[in-house]
């Protein structure tokens, strides 16, 4: 599938997602609904995924680039960050470590738990 077709499809799915969210006034973002809709489409037609993969891989390789403009917004909030830098730095740092650990450990714990409850070993 050509790159342009894939981009157009992604935008169409996003648009449908946005319209659904707007129509039902859901608090979920449109792109997430669009993603779930595309996933459903792929489950119905697996060949679609193979055709789209080359283009979507290209987009996802540069996923971090897309966060740069929002990050530069830092400069608008510099005076607040200066006043509260210690609270903000510690809060962000510690909560990130805690978030990573709690999620990883609970995932491992719950995996064992649910598996033994259902009676299979692995």
């Amino acid at each position: 599938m050509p790159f342009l077709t894939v981009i157009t499809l992604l935008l169409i799915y996003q648009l449908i997602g946005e319209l659904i969210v707007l129509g039902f006034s859901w608090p979920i973002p449109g792109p997430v609904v669009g993603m779930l809709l595309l996933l459903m489409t792929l489950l119905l037609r697996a060949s679609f995924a193979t055709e789209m993969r080359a283009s979507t891989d290209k987009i996802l390789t540069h996923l971090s680039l897309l966060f740069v403009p929002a990050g530069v917004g830092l400069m608008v909030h510099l005076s607040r960050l200066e006043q509260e830098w210690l609270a903000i730095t510690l809060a962000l740092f510690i909560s990130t470590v805690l978030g990573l650990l709690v999620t990883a450990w609970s995932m491992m714990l719950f995996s064992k738990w649910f598996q033994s409850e259902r009676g299979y070993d692995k």
Partner: protein
Amino acid sequence: MTNDSAIWVYLSASPLFGLTLTLVSYLLAVKLYQTGRGNPLLNPVALSILLIMGVLYAFNLTYEAYFSGAQFIHFLLGPATVALAIPLFDQFGKLKKVWLPLTAALVLGITVSGFSAYFIALQLGASEQTLLSLIPKSVTAPIAMGISEKTGGLPTLTAVFVVITGILGAILGSTLFKLLKIRDDSVKGVAMGVTAHGLGTARSFQLSPEMGAFAGLAMALSASISPFLLPLVLSFVQRFQ
């Protein structure tokens, strides 16, 4: 008046400058990151943000002028989120086996990420707006900004916290997992996706396709659950304060 100022008037009014500056800085930052053999401390996002801020300060340009061009890149977060359906689909077989522990870990991880930041900042005397803006910081940017707006935070401040959290997660993640001997790619991916959203996902894809797919999945699920979960926990927390 002079030719020089005419050029700056043009540059600060045209979206071309912000757009080009973003791409050039990012490419430079990636080059540096590769030269440093992928040292996570040379995070390309952090580097390019600092680079861009330096240029904007040097030429006395505002964030609004910059964003009039950079918004075209910001906009692509939407279609890129939709594109995550592909790696998600690739791991769907594995997902079906782990959805129950995954959902449980997700709810716990989202709550701990957001509210540990809230309580630490509260203890250290941060203002209420900062506190409320911190809560959705582990959720991907567009969604986090929406949550922040609903709960009384500042959406643009939340966006900054989101990006910093993402960079921190990308930097700390692999070291932390190695230190604690967490080896399962699906577990590592989920932790990265819940805590560090798209930036954690991008980092996970560099480490392994399976880890990346699970990070993308966790990020997407977190983006769907958080808008309900975080305001609910907040109202609970506020009742006891």
